[in-house]
């Protein structure tokens, strides 16, 4: 398996987990609150990226990684603060996966990965995160 293929499969696996996590976030947060709407929008974004990656991997003749039956979240999502922590962790992990994809790709796929790094980094802020020097490269989880 090439480095590019491995990185694509890893980021797809990450998006499967992100879609699951965002589904939980959007479902558990109080309806129509700003944070719940933020989670709902994030769900759409991650689902779209998941579907795009499935298409990219399939177009190369590879079998896309499949989603797990379920995922264990790092903390329960019973409070907005816990939801924010989960949201930040999901985006931090996705940032790292897309940054790794940048390193193994070129052309349009690299551009897609770069834009995803930027999106995940800024999306962290909506979950209460703070800017860091190197999103996706240095573990900024707190």
């Amino acid at each position, binding site marked *: 398996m090439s480095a590019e293929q491995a990185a694509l499969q890893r980021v797809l696996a990450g998006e499967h987990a992100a879609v699951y996590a965002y589904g939980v976030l959007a479902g558990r947060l109080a309806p129509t609150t*700003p944070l719940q709407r933020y989670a709902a929008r994030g769900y759409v974004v991650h689902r779209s990226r998941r579907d795009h990656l499935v298409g990219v991997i399939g177009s190369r003749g590879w079998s896309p990684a499949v989603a797990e039956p379920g995922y264990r979240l790092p903390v329960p999502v019973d409070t907005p603060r816990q939801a924010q922590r989960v949201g930040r962790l999901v985006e931090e992990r996705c940032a790292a996966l897309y940054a*790794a994809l*940048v390193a193994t790709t070129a052309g349009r796929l690299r551009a897609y990965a770069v834009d995803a790094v*930027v999106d995940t980094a*800024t999306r*962290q*802020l909506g979950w209460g995160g*703070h*800017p860091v020097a*190197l999103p996706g490269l240095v573990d900024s989880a707190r």
Partner: protein
Amino acid sequence: MRGEDADPLPRRRLLAAAGVAFGCLGAGCTETTRPSAAGTTTSPSSSEPANAEGADAALVAAVVRAENRLLDAYQAVLGGSAGTLHAFAEHHRQHVLLLGGLPDQRTGRRRLSRDLQRLRDLEDMAATRLRGQALAARSGDLARVLASMSASSAQHAVVLNRLRTPTGHAGRHR
């Protein structure tokens, strides 16, 4: 504002985190992997064109110059304002150090506006510029670092926009 990177990371650790051998970025280095058009990666060999390394060295030099200009802009604005702007200036100082440059030490010499909007605009432009440079980089590891730096500037722009408009929505995302 709480600074996530209150302690500046040493360059060796930053480069290790970026998967780059110490001292690899810039002239005279070989890449660990480079993506090919066919989607497979190739290891560098003695046949790696010298102009590829030279092209990345020139790219790194351009990034360092631009980061120093941003650093200078923050230092000119900081005045009595600590916290957020200091943290962002420190991020750009780390970017310069990571790429082997020397952080600009000039303070208060240039007549730059103290407008937060200007800083936000500069960060927006930096994010766009670094995106293009990440796409242009021959080295995959350098591209990853530049993508991360672009994301950092994008984060700064979001927060600076909030500082300008205290009632603004958290995050830029719709």
